[in-house]
């Protein structure tokens, strides 16, 4: 393998392939459509002729003498009985036919015009100028020539040529055969080709009409042998068989003077086969199909689109040393770890290069064989293969392990199975940001799934409803070093998107920390010991006592996981959910989090303290103590959370939404009242007495008014419902702490679902003038336009259910549309940015060294290290310094 640059491409010349060139590069003229004889040997001058390369071991290439992996393959050719048009050049052929004289072949421009245009063109070098500029000029000239109906050179009357897609040309309704087309194109003098942007040395127009077809090497279209021993040919070979067959029949019919009609039919058929050989999705003709009905994958299909050569094989590749399986949660793992099932660990290997220092230990490792276990039957890493210096691989089995261990010498490579502590890459698609692929250290676990800490769900956007993820084992020391230093989960806690943490506690963690700190509850010594047994601590916090009973405060327990010296002050989100005045507004003991020297004085820990995106404590720990301390905090916080919530227990059910009878009737009243008000609004509107709002029509005003009425109704009923559901209610705890759902969802369950909408307005489509045939045409009342007065708990009536489904579908459609659109946008951005780099001076450059930005982002700030995009948080620094000075 050569490294570095051996040659630099100076320029690339594009041209058309001349028939002579096709014959010259061909090693064999293919004349029979057959492939193999009865013995399975390639037929001479057939499509699998040995001149075009070999795919079977044992045989040798007739052209170069190479064996299977040595011969690069060679082209052959097919002489077509009659010429056919190349589909890829239809547009160009049309331009030539339109712009040149049917009789003398000159471009239909006057001598004067030719003189001026030639002068203008001479300023441009055809092969080095911008093709787009040349294209625009050429189009102007050829259009002008195409308009002319009498030849300025020989005065021949011209006629219009119509292209009957995809490949048929007609002149005054009569078909122009490819043969005639070719003759016309041949007549065009070299000198006139400049006006078409053609360089006659590398491209003559008649070469766009095929007389000879190159046959690609066998390596390009290998046949495969099925288990049954049956041979299956490549789609391209199938297509070439068709082409040769028809070409032969056409030649025979022509030579023995068959009727013109039959010849024309065969000629058309040949054109069809050649066209579909190039592109089997040409518009206007049915795609050629396999016997099974599957459309053939021909040349264009091999290259184009997501499954094509470029996107599927060149931009992206399949890799070894990787594993994929279902994921599941494991709260006792660190955020930096990933649990790998034993079965996968036995298959995944790390290469160990043997040297004088590790020779003994490696021999011992090899001697263990491929399935070692320790005395407690616990997994131990074994060895699957050893690789000799010449590259030969030896499979290690339990039987040959000891013997092979002795053979291992310095310079050999040993493929060791995955071990605890190995660094690996873990990835979940779609990989939308860099946190979609992070470095984890391995823990070998029993079971069949990959496992990780729940705090890492957010960056991967993973849940456990069947999600699968990929694992990649790094094979080089450099890769492992990079993974440890820059890709490890703890290094990715801060998001470059918004300069805050993207990893933090979720769901139960938040609920649990809320329960631990809200109102600073008391825990008995026994409870405290249980909770704290989940984390590594030397001592319990300071005890308090009352009536001789020892107890501990929740905030003190929480403080044990905070690093010493941490100071912070912020508001919890306790009041942000409440619409009106919150009961904790004036209660700093619950609302305002205040931490001094790692001791929590007061406040409530919730989403805004430990959650991803907002987690203030995580943010502050990261800024002051760095990645290691932060990952330790998250690990201990999540474990502490599990410790408490599994002791206390936490559940919610439909009973949690029970509200008193009188509240139900008040909500009923509200909905009836809303419907009443809507009817009144409609009445005023119908009487023409509704005053339009400024800049709105009367109809728009009516809709806005009605929407506000329904909105108020839902809010009011929500308020009534939630006034009976306090912070003792599990659902409310989850909503207020930010663990899951919003207060709005609770009022939908207990109070009223409310108005359904599509595109921000009331439902109005479906049937003529109404949403469902049950309604009068033109009914714009509450029920007819999707007002749902029931709650989820009381249940929706069929009409409401239907309306609700309409509203729900909008969300589904939106996500479907958004993902595909943003995916395409992302692809284009990545392709544009992929080879830009930032150098030591923070200059952004492309591969050539051309500067994109003189300073990264114009300010040189790494958004990951910014405070929400700002360079520094001055207020916090002042606060922190003040407290530190005080101490």
């Amino acid at each position: 393998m050569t490294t570095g640059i051996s040659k630099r491409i100076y320029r690339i010349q594009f041209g058309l392939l001349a028939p002579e060139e096709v014959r010259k590069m061909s090693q064999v003229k293919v004349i029979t459509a057959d492939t193999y004889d009865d013995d399975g040997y390639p037929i001479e001058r057939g499509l699998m002729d040995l001149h075009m390369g070999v795919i079977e071991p044992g045989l040798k290439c007739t052209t170069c003498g190479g064996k299977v992996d040595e011969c690069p393959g060679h082209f052959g050719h097919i002489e077509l009985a009659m010429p056919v048009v190349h589909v890829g050049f239809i547009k160009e052929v049309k331009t030539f036919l339109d712009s040149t004289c049917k009789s003398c072949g000159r471009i239909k421009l006057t001598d004067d015009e030719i003189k001026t245009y030639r002068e203008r063109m001479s300023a441009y070098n055809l092969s080095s100028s911008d093709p787009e500029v040349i294209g625009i000029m050429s189009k102007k000239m050829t259009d002008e020539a195409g308009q002319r109906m009498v030849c300025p050179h020989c005065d021949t009357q011209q006629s219009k040529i119509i292209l009957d897609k995809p490949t048929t040309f007609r002149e005054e309704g009569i078909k122009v055969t490819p043969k005639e087309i070719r003759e016309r194109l041949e007549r065009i003098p070299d000198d006139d080709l400049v006006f078409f942007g053609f360089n006659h040395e590398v491209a003559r127009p008649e070469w766009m009409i095929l007389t000879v077809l190159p046959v690609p090497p066998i390596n390009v279209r290998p046949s495969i042998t099925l288990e049954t021993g049956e041979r299956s040919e490549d789609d391209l070979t199938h297509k070439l068989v068709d082409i040769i067959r028809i070409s032969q029949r056409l030649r025979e019919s022509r030579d023995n003077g068959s009727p013109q009609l039959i010849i024309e039919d065969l000629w058309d058929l040949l054109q069809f086969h050649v066209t579909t050989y190039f592109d089997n999705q040409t518009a206007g003709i049915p795609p050629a199909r396999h016997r099974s009905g599957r459309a053939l994958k021909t040349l264009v299909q091999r290259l184009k689109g997501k499954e094509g050569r470029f996107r599927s094989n060149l931009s992206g590749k399949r890799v070894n040393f990787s594993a994929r399986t279902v994921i599941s949660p494991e709260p006792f793992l660190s955020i930096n770890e990933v649990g790998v099932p034993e079965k996968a660990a036995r298959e995944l290997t790390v290469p160990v290069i043997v040297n004088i220092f590790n020779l003994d230990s490696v021999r011992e490792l090899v001697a263990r064989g491929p399935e070692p276990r320790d005395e407690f039957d616990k997994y131990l890493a074994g060895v699957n293969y050893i690789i000799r210096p010449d590259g030969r691989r030896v499979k290690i089995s339990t039987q040959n392990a000891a013997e092979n261990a002795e053979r291992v010498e310095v310079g050999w490579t040993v493929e060791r199975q995955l071990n605890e502590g190995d660094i690996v890459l873990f990835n979940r698609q779609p990989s939308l940001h860099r946190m979609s692929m992070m470095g984890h250290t391995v823990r070998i676990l029993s079971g069949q799934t990959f496992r990780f800490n729940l705090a890492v769900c957010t960056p991967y956007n993973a849940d456990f409803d069947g999600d699968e993820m990929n694992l990649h084992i790094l094979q080089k020391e450099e890769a492992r070093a990079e993974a440890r230093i820059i890709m490890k989960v703890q290094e990715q806690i801060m998001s470059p998107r918004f300069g805050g943490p993207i990893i933090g506690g979720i769901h139960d963690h938040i609920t649990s920390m809320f329960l631990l700190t809200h109102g600073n509850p008391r825990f008995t010594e026994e409870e405290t010991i249980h909770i704290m047994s989940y984390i590594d601590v030397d001592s319990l916090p300071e005890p308090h006592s009352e009536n001789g009973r020892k107890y501990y405060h929740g905030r003190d327990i929480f403080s044990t996981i905070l690093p010493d010296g941490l100071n912070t002050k912020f508001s919890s989100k306790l009041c942000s959910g409440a619409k009106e005045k919150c009961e904790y507004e004036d209660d700093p003991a619950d609302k305002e989090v205040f931490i001094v020297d790692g001791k929590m004085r007061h406040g409530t820990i919730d989403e805004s303290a430990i959650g991803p995106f907002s987690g203030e404590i995580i943010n502050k720990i990261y800024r002051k103590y760095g990645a290691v301390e932060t990952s330790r905090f998250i690990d201990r916080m999540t474990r502490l959370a599990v410790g408490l919530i599994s002791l206390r227990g936490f559940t919610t059910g439909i009973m949690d939404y029970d509200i008193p009878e009188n509240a139900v009737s008040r909500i009923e009243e509200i909905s009836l009242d809303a419907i009443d008000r809507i009817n009144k609004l409609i009445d005023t509107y119908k009487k023409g007495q509704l005053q339009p709002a400024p800049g709105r029509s009367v109809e728009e005003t009516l809709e806005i008014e009605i929407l506000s009425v329904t909105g108020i109704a839902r809010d009011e009923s929500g308020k009534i419902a939630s006034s009976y559901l306090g912070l003792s209610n599990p659902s409310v705890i989850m909503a207020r702490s930010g663990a899951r759902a919003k207060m709005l969802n609770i009022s939908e369950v207990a109070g009223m679902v409310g108005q359904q909408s599509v595109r921000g307005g009331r439902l109005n489509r479906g049937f003529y003038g109404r949403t469902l045939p049950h309604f009068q045409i033109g009914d714009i009342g509450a029920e007819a336009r999707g007002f749902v007065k029931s709650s989820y708990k009381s249940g929706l009536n069929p009409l409401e259910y239907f309306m609700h489904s309409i509203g729900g579908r909008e969300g589904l459609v939106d996500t479907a549309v958004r993902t595909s659109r943003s995916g395409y946008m992302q692809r284009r951005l990545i392709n544009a940015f992929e080879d830009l780099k930032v150098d030591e001076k923070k200059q952004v450059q492309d591969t050539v060294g051309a500067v994109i930005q003189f300073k990264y982002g114009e300010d040189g700030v790494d958004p990951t290290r910014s405070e929400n995009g700002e360079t520094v948080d001055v207020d916090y620094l002042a606060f922190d310094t003040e407290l530190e000075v005080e101490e």
Partner: protein
Amino acid sequence: MGKLNVLRHELVPEHHLVKKEDEDKVLKELNIAKDLLPKISRNDPAVKALEDIHGPLEEGRIIRIVRKSPTAGFSIYYRAISGEIFK
């Protein structure tokens, strides 16, 4: 009404022509060859506005652009005039 000067518009950053004798100094400071500088079309309205002041500008002249930045205060950017016409 006079001709519109795009450089006067509040959304257009400051464009200054780098003196010919200062070009080497600028390039040395950036440690970069002239052809690696970002380009600006000679048809760019900002270049035309500069031409109104300095007379016709040939290809390769360097323009210093001073942009306001919410994080950095201001940032300096250089572009070399290119003969190519960008779309």
